[in-house]
């Protein structure tokens, strides 16, 4: 009987689970938008990572993307943006990124992965789109950022990134 209660409680708590600051980043194995290569969370060990969950259908996600282009372009090798698209079709994300590349005049400077099953937003318990997670060198989530970032927010974020380097 006790076992049954424990199982029921664990199952119930699972429904409210998410990742907050100080917890380990969720492990993943996702393909790039082109589907050519797979990446795992462990591949970024030793680097400060900004994991961005976005979709081409989400206005806020599209609004902050040029800021991420600039941020990655200005950053050194110790920091990497990993943009995970949750679009059903990777081609939609690629279409948006190509149009943005045309506007800014250079290729997407960071890694773009595809998560059509929404595994990461579910695991992180994302409460809004876009959601971003600042992960330190040891793979621990240091900041949870809900909503889109503007230029001023990016300046504040840079300070946080430098602290973690």
């Amino acid at each position, binding site marked *: *009987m006790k076992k*049954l*209660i424990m199982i*029921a*409680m664990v*199952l*119930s708590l699972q*429904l*409210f689970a998410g990742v907050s600051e100080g917890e380990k980043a969720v492990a993943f194995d996702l393909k790039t938008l082109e589907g050519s290569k797979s990446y795992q969370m462990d591949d970024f060990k030793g680097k400060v990572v900004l994991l961005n*969950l976005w*979709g081409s*259908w*989400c*206005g*806020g996600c599209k609004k902050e993307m040029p800021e991420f282009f600039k941020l990655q372009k200005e950053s050194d090798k110790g920091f990497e943006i990993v943009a995970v698209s*949750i*679009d*059903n079709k990777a081609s939609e994300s690629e279409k948006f990124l190509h149009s943005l590349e045309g506007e800014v005049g250079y290729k997407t400077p960071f890694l773009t992965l595809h998560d059509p099953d*929404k595994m990461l*937003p*579910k695991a992180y318990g*994302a*409460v*809004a*789109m876009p959601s971003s997670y600042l992960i330190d060198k040891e793979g621990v989530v240091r900041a949870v950022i809900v*909503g889109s970032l503007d230029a001023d927010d990016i300046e504040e974020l840079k300070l946080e990134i430098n602290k973690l380097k």
Partner: protein
Amino acid sequence: MQFRILYLFVTALLFLSGCSDKLVRVMPYEKEHFADKKMSLSPLEERAEQEGHIFLIREASAGGDSSFQGGCGCR
């Protein structure tokens, strides 16, 4: 008696977990189809956003499109 209370507790827990936010509400990352233009309330793009905003306030709902809103109309 104790067994019955425990049984009721477990049943209530399982029943109430069905009301979890994650199960009854469309989560923000599941709104791709809702964000499609053809799902807008008005065929006129300029009016659709305004009409959608008013609809959400009136319904005090959490938003059916890609936006993140409460029912207060403050966003």
